[in-house]
């Protein structure tokens, strides 16, 4: 396939493009979903296609095709060139790419796992989901609905460009989740959920804390606990957030603002703030395509969709803004190094600046010390999503929480929403625990523009924050 891509690059250059890149995905996606006793979904997807980007005078044109024939790939290259050429006169801000050294991949760039999902049959995966559901039922109460999910994504990603790059590696994501809905005596529905994914072999789902019994049992137990949970008080309160919520904070509220496509246009409030102190010394945020997965979990991204080798980028270093996240054009524009953050959801979309694994760095507190530091406030746990606006305001939903008084957990809280402005919040980070966990997976992911969901990793330690606005009951 690399030969077809190389010919497309040559054709684009012949048409007049100053730089061309071409990529090919041949991915398999498998989803299993059981709701109560019914199998809702057992499916397999073959996602194969080619994407071509042509650059004319610093303007990119993109096209794609689901075909891998030379004729169709050439037609895509021609469309990409035409789009770039037609758009170029209107551009006021150009992001040209200067030719450099080609990227070359090696077999070791693909993360090796003990049991690749392609080595186990469907019955094995069906059993994983069945065990999850049974465990949820065993540990739950007043259950109205229980849902178990398994997902896997794997396959080849091939890339070349005008520099003669030759990148060929295998992508892998596996995931298992459980959702439980229970009904309280008041008639209100409450939820419990658990699960995790990332670049894992199936041996991960046999490890402590991650077995179907662990995942289902935790989801059931949490829904049961929520039956007696109280609404969160509204107002400005002290907060302790868990690893998963810290990850959403790192990703949604800070990570997106550090994406350099927002910076070169001036849309990000982090524009022109390199070297500025934005947070307390306890706040450090990294983005890395190459995390230590055995230790922390996460997603393995050795190359981005512009063929740039994955790396670790310290975005915020002890409260000081150090670096933005880039594609090749924004890195050149801002004279920073490319960070391997140009990613696309699939061949249907052009690569844009996206995160890989974004997380807060751990501190030195134990969980008990973090609770004592919190003193009185909300311990917010897990997340069902979040959002940030260009002005830095954010909102996250924590699935559940606890009310804490004088360092002691008092009672469970229902779903809580945290909001505020990220630049203010970073100045209120008071401490972090020693643990680091990165959450990733097949289900859900990051949305930006019309590209969603992109698998990403996000995480951190538990973090104590001085003052957060909680939406709740007045």
């Amino acid at each position, binding site marked *: 396939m690399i030969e077809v891509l190389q010919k497309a690059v040559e054709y684009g250059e012949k048409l007049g493009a100053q730089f061309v890149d071409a990529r090919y995905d041949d991915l398999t996606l498998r989803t299993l979903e059981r709701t109560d006793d019914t199998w809702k979904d057992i499916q*397999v997807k*073959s996602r194969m296609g080619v994407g071509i980007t042509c650059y004319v005078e610093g303007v990119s044109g993109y096209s794609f095709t689901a075909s891998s024939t030379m004729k169709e790939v050439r037609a895509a290259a021609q469309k990409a060139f035409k789009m770039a050429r037609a*758009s170029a006169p*209107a551009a006021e801000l150009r992001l040209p790419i200067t030719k450099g050294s080609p990227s070359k991949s090696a077999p070791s760039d693909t993360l090796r796992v003990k049991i690749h999902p392609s080595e186990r049959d469907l019955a094995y995966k069906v059993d994983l989901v069945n065990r999850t559901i049974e465990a949820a039922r065993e540990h739950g109460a007043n259950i109205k609905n229980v849902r178990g999910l398994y997902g896997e994504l794997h396959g080849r990603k091939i890339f070349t460009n005008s520099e003669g790059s030759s990148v060929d590696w295998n992508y892998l994501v596996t995931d298992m989740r459980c959702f439980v809905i229970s009904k309280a005596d008041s008639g209100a529905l409450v939820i419990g959920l658990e699960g995790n994914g990332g670049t894992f072999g199936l041996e991960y789902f046999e490890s402590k804390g991650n077995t179907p019994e662990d995942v289902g049992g935790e989801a059931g137990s949490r829904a049961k606990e929520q039956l007696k949970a109280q609404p969160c008080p509204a107002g400005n309160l002290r907060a302790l957030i868990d690893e998963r919520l810290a990850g959403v904070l790192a990703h949604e509220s800070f990570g997106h603002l550090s994406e350099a496509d927002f910076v070169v246009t001036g849309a990000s409030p982090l524009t022109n703030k390199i070297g500025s102190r934005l947070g307390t010394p306890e706040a450090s945020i990294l983005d890395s395509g190459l995390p230590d997965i055995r230790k922390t979990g996460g997603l393995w991204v050795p190359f981005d969709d512009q063929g740039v080798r994955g790396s670790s980028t310290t975005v915020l270093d002890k409260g000081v803004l150090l670096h933005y996240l880039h594609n090749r054009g924004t890195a050149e524009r801002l004279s920073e190094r490319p960070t391997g953050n140009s990613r696309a959801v699939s061949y249907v979309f052009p690569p844009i600046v996206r995160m890989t694994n974004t997380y807060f760095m751990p501190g030195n507190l134990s969980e008990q010390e973090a609770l004592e530091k919190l003193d009185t406030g909300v311990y917010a746990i897990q997340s069902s999503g979040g959002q940030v606006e*260009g002005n830095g305001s954010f909102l*996250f939903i924590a699935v559940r929480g606890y009310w804490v008084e004088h360092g002691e957990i008092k009672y469970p809280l229902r779903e809580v929403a945290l909001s505020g402005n990220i630049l203010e919040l970073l100045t209120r980070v008071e401490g972090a625990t020693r643990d680091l966990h990165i959450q990733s997976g097949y289900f859900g992911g990051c949305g930006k523009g019309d590209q969603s969901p992109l698998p990403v990793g996000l995480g951190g330690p538990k973090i104590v924050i001085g003052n957060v606005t909680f939406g709740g009951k007045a």
Partner: protein
Amino acid sequence: MEYESIKDELLSVADTGLKFAAKQDSSAEFEVYVHYGSVSRVELDQGMVTAKDGVAAGCAVRVAKGKRLGFACASGISTARVKKAVEESLSVVNSVSAEDDKFSGFCDPKKAGRECKFNRNILGVEVDELMRHCQDMTKEARSVDPRVKVVTAECRVLWDSYAVANSRGVQQASRSGSNRCLVYVMSIDGDERKTAYRHDAACDRLLHTEGLGKEAASEAVGQHHAKKLELTSVLPTLWGPEAAAAYVLSSLGQSAHGRAVVEHTSPLCDMMGAAIAGEGFTLVDEGQRPDGLGTEAVDAEGHPQMRNVIVENGILKGFLFNTYYGRLFGVGSTGNCSRGGGPFGTPIPYESVTGISAKALEVSPGTKTHDQLVSSIDGKGILIADDPMGIFHSTMSTGQFSVVANRVYLIEKGSRSYPLQPLSVAGNYYDGFKKLNGVGSNATLGLYGVRSPSLVFDGFTVVG
């Protein structure tokens, strides 16, 4: 492929796939779905241009052997790719013993509905015209005020078609197209950043971009010098059309889905015929509106799309179903089968299994103008100008929501007062509908395809 002949071509591909499938296993029931979608998109972001032009095409096959079900899909619609999807779906169904004992067959054939009224001139819009629209909107926005620092304009033309064939005799296809634009403006004054957007979308006419940049910029600039509310209290909230559309979509737009009803995850599941909203509230899913962006002849499994009343004068009247859940509920399909539908849609629907989504939700307009709704609020109230942050992250099952409203104004003594800094609004969707205190006459098509007027709710907690 051309728009005029696309349906015949896709039907031919689907039929070929179905015949191949029947040869592989005559004891199984099959459904073959084939999709072809063309998109041209141009974005002008602070002078930085990105342009895209391509075709997403793919096929999906569902197979049933008794109560065992399988699904497979493949990008591409060549014979080889359709055959691959058929073979993969059979390998799924033959390798598991898991059954869905509620399954009772795919969609039965019925007479198709109508397609949207599509203006063929949209097909002739070239990339330079899209670019010109982007430049015009940007220029307009920048001319409003020097504080307008960031302007992003986007225009797109898209058309697509799909065909469905199944073993029960369904052989249906539909096609539609539209052109859409969006302008997003950020005004910066010191550390204060204020944003606003405007959009247009149509299938029956070419885009109207004139005035959008100016309106968005004026609204963004008008929010400067926002004050802090300095209050935690329960206040009446007036949701403008964009905000109200988002509220409806993330609440009843999800909980009226047949799956949530049948599986008891919707709080509406035992409430048919009950009063769930104020008397002035009527909600319809209009799958056959001639100029509707969600209008198709058939849904994603070949059932005719329809007009479905969900709430009429506050009374819950109906839910939205595909064939599977409609049969389980005993009412049949309402033509709401989707593949990857929902607020944000997908350019690759063939990758999604069949689900349920509203086609075009419409809240019937009331009699009061937006200004009359403002003046109807005694004392303090809050005006939420557009969709608040986090509205799509709330849980339909519990109805609890907590959002951050960014474009928000104080209402005092019946008139709109000064802009406020972002504030948190929290409550319960369903309690809100019961405390609905006003429905405006200003129904507008929102960014996510829902048509709603302004709505006034009592009882939400505001923190700011």
